[in-house]
């Protein structure tokens, strides 16, 4: 069980750089062939200053560069083996491209028991800003804990 008093807790901000080699690994893993992600000229023709990232890659950047990738689970005493991903949301405000340095600031916004306490849903919302201080995205993940 997760204590509802966890709502409002925030975690160590994560700073992550959008590195071309790591991005290529992600694109290759997914068989992603869209030239906008792979070809600098195609990205510029589409109006970007450099190659953009795919829509879910923000989630990966935060995990890859966190000192403690599952900090919020550890801090809330949640066992990784009992966690499933319930929902994921991305809201995009401005482009993120190769070379950007992003800061992720996360906090707990919801804790709710479901199915008579058999499961607990935990919502963590994250604000993402870039090296210029621009607010580029918001993400929200809902974790299902099997109690």
């Amino acid at each position, binding site marked *: 069980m997760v204590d509802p008093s966890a709502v409002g807790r925030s975690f160590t901000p994560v700073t992550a750089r959008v590195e071309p080699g790591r991005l290529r690994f992600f694109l290759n893993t*997914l068989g992603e062939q869209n030239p906008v992600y792979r070809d600098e000229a195609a990205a510029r023709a589409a109006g970007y200053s450099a190659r953009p990232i795919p*829509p*879910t890659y923000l989630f990966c950047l935060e*995990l890859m560069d966190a000192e403690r990738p599952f900090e919020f689970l550890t801090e809330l005493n949640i066992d*990784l083996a009992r966690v499933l991903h319930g929902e994921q949301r991305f809201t995009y405000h401005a482009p993120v491209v190769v070379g950007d340095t992003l800061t992720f600031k996360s906090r707990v916004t919801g804790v709710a028991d479901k199915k008579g306490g058999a499961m607990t849903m935990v919502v963590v919302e994250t604000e993402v800003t870039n090296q210029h201080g621009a607010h580029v995205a918001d993400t929200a993940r809902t974790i299902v804990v099997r109690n």
Partner: protein
Amino acid sequence: MSEMAIDHPAVGERVVYKTFPPITRHTLALYCGASGDHNPIHVDIDFARAAGFPDVFSHGMLVMAYLGQALTDAIAPSRIRSFWTRFAAITQLGASLTCEGHVTELIEYKGEKRAKLALTTKDEAGEIKLAGEAIIAL
């Protein structure tokens, strides 16, 4: 790319459709490294069994990444305002995924014409793995 086709979408129109090859253990291992999600439940069968699962299973975010790929094959990434999914069921090894998106509503937000898409990812048996929504600028 069919980007021009979605400039004037009609409600009910299917604008996103893509199929993907079966998910292998190798895919899960690569995604573990490429995504930074090192949860052993997706790559270590001993860990998965100890947690009560018969085998390893896909990262939800791998499946969402495939859906995102299907989405940006059809719609330029710069047009996507939001992207949301619910993970309806665990995606098993070997699943061959089909991602689809249909226009459900035409809307306007702060002067920008937008469309709401209903998104699904199903396996080869037709079971819904992901159900979600994207808002795109037209």
